């Protein structure tokens, strides 16, 4: 594995970590916003937000697998 591949994997890993942290922050804020304002489509908003967190976790696992196993 050359230096370019290592650099690429490090960047991808950092992106995956930041994305996961970002979705966690957004999910926490959505909980606060949902508590502040209860409107017709809040259920859908909560669902999409939890989907985003799950997706970011899957991405992080895939990236970790690609770095350490594959």
């Amino acid at each position, binding site marked *: 594995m050359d230096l370019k591949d290592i650099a690429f994997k490090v960047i991808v890993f950092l992106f995956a970590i930041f994305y996961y942290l970002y979705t966690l922050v*957004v999910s926490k804020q959505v909980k*606060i916003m949902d508590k*502040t*304002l209860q409107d017709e489509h809040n259920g859908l*908003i909560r669902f999409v937000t939890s989907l985003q967190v799950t997706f970011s976790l899957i991405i992080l696992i895939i990236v970790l697998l690609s770095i350490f196993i594959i």
Partner: protein
Amino acid sequence: MENNNKKSSAFYSYRLNPQTKFDTQEDGEKVYLLLRSHPFTQIGWILTSIVFIILLFILNFIPQNIFNIGQIFLINLFFVIFILSYIWFHILNWYFNVGIITNKRVIDIDFYAVLYKEITNAQLGRIEDSTVKSGGYIESLFDYGSIFIQTAGTEANVEFIGVPHPSDAVQIINKLMSKKHGP
């Protein structure tokens, strides 16, 4: 309020008698009108998202041999994630930044960049003046504008920026105020 000629419209940005609740709602407080920014005011980020999507397609058509197929897949994946997050962030911003008119007060709920929360409210009895500002071709065409509500004393003023049917909203506020004060 039932005789107001504008019903709920413009993608939930102008809703009469909504089933909305908010955390500082008092007993017997009824929500008459819920306002969000007019969808046309969101055109900036919608166009930016379209530009990002086009950019993604263009980048994929440029032949390059720096990255292998797996790496190209990951770059595409992160680009798509970035675009979707950008869109979702702006939808959240639009959905939760609202103006509420109840039988007791006028409330402005703002979340700046999703992270910062600011709630301003003005009791109907403390409102001194409400002004509608709407101008230009686009605002006239789509019937949206800004409402500025001035309050007496040290209470903060309330502003609803880029909301649909601003004149009707002010009419509702005035009717509620006259109900409160008497004709």
